[in-house]
Structure formats: structure tokens, C-alpha cells
């Protein structure tokens, strides 16, 4: 009898040892693995849940989610103010301002630190963080927790376009995160087409969790294009979630997120046409005097804002002929050549702007001036 107990105990120990051997890795958040992701370019940034930063790598047609572990809560964000930010970044990288470009910026909504994607003239990507003390630090991309999703290699039929083939993205124009989904808009360097992808996060690689869509919109109800989306944001109107997309051919279009389903051609409602060369390169929602505004930045023209109420009220689509910019009213802001824009908090934006004298400054709005 004693011998059988001993045998059972030995067996249990053996099993425990076996499982201890298999399950030796700590559980990483969001299904991530630890290692060094292959990142060839950093062209877009967007924050997801709890310090997760999505990095759009256009050259690899991949989005990498990294755990920044930058989760120390800062309730009142200090304003960023750094003149000649391009010169200062170039100094920190040991080169001249002509040899770098600022590809994107993203404020960590938890820590309020500013993440900056920089590319050197030879194409080397760099991810920096600007602390509240205006100090640049390197964000290491070695031995980190990450997961990734390849955009051109659709996992299954459902994740292909409605004619059943993978989309070809050569550049990621924008990234966003809403309702547990990563949203990606892409451009092709060859065909003129719209590709918008919705991917459940954490990434599962399953076909049901990814959908690729073609988004059509018409001008004045007549000429329809599947033009690429340049930038987008999300909002809720009357309890329904929407994507507000800005197209390379100028219209501002609303898509109901419920309509973004695989295999269905999504048709958008054009709510405004922007002026000449005024396709926004960035857009964010800000509050001012109790009202919400969609603030749009452009590197050629003044930044502009549209009232949420105007968008909400605009029931129809642009169907009538108009002489100037049409649809919802937008107000031009006294800020030209805004190169980058992100939201610091509900009321303030962080802005990278090329000034009239050619200098590039980083500054923060005061909650009233935008």
C-alpha cells in the first residue's frame, strides 16, 4: 500500500516537473512574444490599450504592437514647447536637419510622453520619446514584448478584397485604435485603390478577426471613386460608431463602423469637400468651450476645424452642385503648415509646425487657440 502511495506521489511530482518545464515562460500581455522585431521603417504611430504602441512599418507592410511599459499615469500633462525641434532631433542623432524627417508623433494617453518617429535620409528608422522635461530618449526596439500583423499576407479568403485577392499595400497612410480593433488605411505605389483594414487586437491571425474593405464615396452623388484614405479618426454619432476618413482626392467622408464588414463594399457619405491642396494629413478630436471639434492639419494650408454638432446635423450627402468647398462648415485656423498633430488631452493638441521663417517648432495649444 505504502509503495503504491509512493508511486502516485512520484507520478504527481513527475507531472509537476513536466508542466514546470513546459510552462516556464511568464504570460506576456496581449499574446506578445519577447524578442527583437524586424522593423524597416516607422511611418505611422498610434497608441492602443495600456501603453501598447502600434508601429506602422510601410516598408514591411506590417504593423507591430509593442509594449512600451510606459504606464505611469500623469493626470495633468505638461505642455511641450521646443523651438527648432528638427534641429534638436538632428543634434541628438548627430546629423543635420536636412538629413531627418519627422514621420509621425503620438502622445501616450497614460504617461503623456510624446513618441516621435524619425527617419534619417538613408532610411534608418528611429523611435524617440520626448519627456515632459523636453529630453529626447531612445525607445529601444531590442528584446521587447511585441506582436505583429502582416498586411499584404491576408490569412484567409475573408481577409482579402471582395474579388478574393490580397490587397497590396506599399505604404500605411494612417493607424487608429477603437473598440478593440486596430484600423489601418493603406496606399499602393501602383494602383489607385482604397484599402482599409480592421484587425482585432490582440492579434489572433484568425480570418474572422480581420476584414479588408474597399471604401467607395461619390462626389455629388455621381462620380464614384475608390480613392485611398489619407487619414482618419473615429467618433460616435447618435450612439453609432463612425469612421471619419479624409481622402487623397479631398472629400471628408463618414462610414458607419457597422458597415465595415468583410466582403461588403462600404459606401461612405461625403460630408465636406476641402479646399485646394487641403487634404488633411492628420486629424484629432478636441474640446473647446464645451463643444467638440474635429481638428485637421495640412502641410500646405492652414489647419481647419469642423464642429461635431455640424457633422452630427449633416444628415445628407453632397448631392448638389456647389461653387466652393461644400458640406459641413469648417473654420480655417491661423496656423499654416502644420506637419504633425496629436491630442495631448481633451482640450490641447501637440503640434509640429513649419513657421513662416522656415523653422520647425513643437508647441502645445492652450485649450483656447485651436
Amino acid at each position, binding site marked *: 500500500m505504502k509503495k503504491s502511495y509512493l508511486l502516485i506521489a512520484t507520478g504527481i511530482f513527475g507531472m509537476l516537473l513536466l508542466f514546470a518545464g513546459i510552462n516556464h515562460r511568464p504570460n506576456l500581455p496581449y499574446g506578445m512574444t519577447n524578442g527583437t522585431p524586424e522593423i524597416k521603417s516607422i*511611418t505611422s504611430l498610434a497608441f492602443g490599450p495600456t501603453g501598447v504602441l502600434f508601429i506602422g512599418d510601410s*516598408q514591411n507592410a506590417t504593423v507591430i504592437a509593442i509594449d512600451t511599459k510606459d504606464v505611469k499615469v500623469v493626470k495633468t500633462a505638461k505642455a511641450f514647447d521646443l523651438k527648432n525641434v528638427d534641429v534638436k532631433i538632428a*543634434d*541628438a*542623432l*548627430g*546629423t*543635420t536637419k*536636412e*538629413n531627418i*524627417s519627422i*514621420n509621425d508623433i503620438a502622445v501616450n494617453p497614460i504617461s503623456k510622453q510624446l513618441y516621435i518617429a524619425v*527617419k*534619417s*535620409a*538613408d*532610411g*534608418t528608422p*528611429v523611435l*524617440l520619446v520626448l519627456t515632459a522635461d523636453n529630453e*529626447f*530618449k*531612445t525607445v529601444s526596439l531590442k528584446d521587447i514584448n511585441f506582436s505583429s500583423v502582416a498586411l499584404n499576407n491576408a490569412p484567409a479568403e475573408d481577409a482579402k478584397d*471582395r*474579388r*478574393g485577392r490580397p490587397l497590396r499595400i*506599399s*505604404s*500605411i497612410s494612417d493607424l487608429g485604435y477603437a473598440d478593440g480593433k486596430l484600423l489601418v488605411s493603406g*496606399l499602393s*505605389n*501602383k*494602383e*489607385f485603390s482604397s484599402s482599409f483594414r480592421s484587425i482585432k487586437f490582440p492579434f489572433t491571425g484568425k480570418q474572422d478577426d480581420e476584414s479588408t474593405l474597399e471604401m467607395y464615396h*461619390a*462626389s*455629388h*452623388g*455621381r*462620380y*464614384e*471613386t*475608390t*480613392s485611398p484614405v*489619407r487619414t482618419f479618426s473615429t467618433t460616435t454619432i447618435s450612439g453609432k460608431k463612425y469612421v471619419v476618413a479624409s481622402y*487623397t*482626392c*479631398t472629400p471628408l467622408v463618414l462610414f458607419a463602423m457597422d458597415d465595415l464588414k468583410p466582403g461588403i*463594399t462600404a459606401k461612405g457619405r461625403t460630408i465636406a*469637400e476641402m*479646399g*485646394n*491642396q487641403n*487634404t488633411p494629413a492628420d486629424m484629432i478630436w478636441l474640446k473647446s468651450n464645451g463643444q467638440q471639434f474635429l481638428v485637421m492639419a495640412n*502641410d*500646405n494650408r492652414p489647419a481647419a476645424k469642423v464642429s461635431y454638432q455640424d457633422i452630427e446635423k449633416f444628415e445628407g450627402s453632397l448631392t448638389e452642385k456647389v*461653387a*466652393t*468647398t*461644400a458640406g459641413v462648415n469648417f473654420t480655417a485656423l491661423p496656423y499654416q503648415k502644420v506637419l504633425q498633430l496629436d491630442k495631448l488631452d481633451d482640450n490641447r493638441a501637440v503640434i509640429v509646425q513649419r513657421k513662416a521663417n522656415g523653422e520647425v517648432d513643437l508647441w502645445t495649444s492652450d485649450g483656447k487657440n485651436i
Partner: protein
Amino acid sequence: MAKIYKINILQSAKLYVKYSLAFFLMAILCCCNQDSGNITLVYHDHSAVGISIPKSIVSSPLDLGSIKVSRSIDKSGTAMLGEFVEEKGQVIFRPLIPLTPGLLYTIYENEKPIGEIEVPFPKGEKAPLLDAIYPESDTLPANLLKFYFQFSKQMQTGKSLDHVSLLDERGDTLNHIFLNLQPELWDSTGKILTIWIDPGRIKRDLVLNKKYGNPLVQNSKYQLVVSGKWKDRFGISLTKNYHKVFVATSPDIVMPNIDSWQIKRPKANTLEPLTIDVNDKMDHLLLKESIIVLNELGVQLEGRVEVTKDRCWKFYPAKTWQSEHYQLKVDTRLEDLAANNLNRLFDRDLTKQKNLNNLMYLTKTFEVKD
């Protein structure tokens, strides 16, 4: 005589062993002690990716935290971001991006300069060339959407529009004619750039199109200029300015049609090329990759494709043609110069083309005879 000869051989052998030992000892010493006292550059793939600092010029014991590198011209002495490591008896500084040719760098220990080094321009590197501009034709539709620029080397990116301009007949530069997309649309090799003419001006019935018309005016002559100041990723400029002169013709608002293709059939048992005149000016890159040839068994033929004059597609088979029927399988994503593809127009007139074609491929059969 034989004895003396034997002694000589023995003496020579002794000397050989002595000199060999001395040689190996010196070689080992050289390998072990790379500290020549000079600051040197570390190269990878023709780029200076690090600075090697001999330990003999830094204090002992070594404190990596006390060393910094800065651009010599940077009077504030901003510490460059990067990592210091000890390697083979040297202190190696690896900056985040390659060091810039032509710049001077200073190494500091405890804020005191201990040496400096200049990064030379690469020797023996050939200057980059602009191999081709597509489309090749000298008459282009007024609603032309894009140009491709094909270089011999990877170029500096991010400020491409500073180097490309379109001049009218008077030689005046047309402002804001191209869409400033960031990131730019480079192909995966980093050698082919796509630049779009502002689609907001091209799409029919948009405010911009109605107010200003197409960016290109029918029957007008233009000159596309690429500046010789554009540098490759090593900082070497193009050798000259490049020009392309063309005349704008009537807008192309007709979908390309494969029924109008003229096929020049090769003879059986030869390696003659299959030549197709696609009867429309097409997108060079898409035309090159959108057509495949299948044999009677449905197997794709191997071979080389050549596209000339925007409309002539030639296929050089790897094996001789057989006397049988072949099939051309054409991807419907193939676009003409105004981005009309085989399924739809760039801007589909909903009153005329009510149903969108939904085909993935179109096919066309031809017969090869003796």
C-alpha cells in the same frame, strides 16, 4: 658536400621556425592589441555606423557613462543618442543612425574633448542615375495621375518634392501640382518613386476640378524636371538635371479594353517574343506584372517581360513555343495612365456605369502555329 648541404638545410629550418614563431607572435600581438591610439570609424555596407575609441585615450578604470560623442559644430555639446560598448579592447560608439559624411564629431570624457574624427565622403561610389521616368510617351492625357521615377540607387527620401518640378510652356513652375504624401511612395527596392498629380484636381465634379480643371491643360506643353541636387543615401548627388518634355492631350475617360489588343503571335518551335500592342497607354509597372501566359494545361510559362512606349508588352519565353492554344490571363487591376482599370473608370459615372464589374481576371486566347 652532401654533409654541408645537410647542415645548411638544418640551419635554414631553424631560421624558418624562428622567423615563423616571431611572425605568429607579432600577428597575435597585433590581433590582441588593436589600440593604435587613433580614433577610427566602423563601417557596415559602406556606411560609417560607429566610432572606435582606443582605450589608451580614456581614463582607467573605464567608465562608459563619462563618455559622449557630439557633432563638433554643436556648441551646446548635445550628447548623441546611441550605445557605448567594449569590443576587442576598444570602446565602440554606435549611434542610432549612420554618421553623416562631411561632418566632424568630437569625443568627450567628463565633458572634456579627447579627440575628434571626420567622416569622409565614400570613395569609389558611383553617382546615382535616374534610369527612367514613366510614362515614357511625349503625349500624355490631361488627367494623367502619376509619374514613376526609377533610380540606379536608393535615394534620400522624405523631401522628394523639393527635387521634382513641373514647368509650363513659359518655364514657370506649377505650384502644388503634386500631392505631398508622407511617407512617400517608394517601392520595396527603394529605387522607384511614385508621385501623384493631385487627385482632387482630377476627379470629375469635385469642387476643385470644376473650379480649376485638370492640373494639366489639353494641348499645353510641359517640362518635368528632376534636380541634379537630389542625393542618394550615401550623400552623392545625381550627376545632372533630368528633363522630360510632353504635351497634354484630351483626358482619358475610357476604360481599357483587352478586346482591342493586337497580338503578334510567335511561330511554334521558336523563342520569338509574344508581342501585344495594348492599344492604350498603360501604367508601366502594372502592365509589366499584370499579364501571364498559360499553356493548354493551364501552367504558367516562364519567361521575361519587357514593356516599351507604355503600350507594347513583350514576353520572351524561357522555352520554345509549342503548336497549341495559349491563354493570356490579365489582372483587372491593370490601369491606364488615368487610373482607369479593366473593371471601372478612375471616377465612375454612376449614371452611365451602374454596375461595377467584379472580375478578378480577364482572359484572351491565341494560337501558335508552325
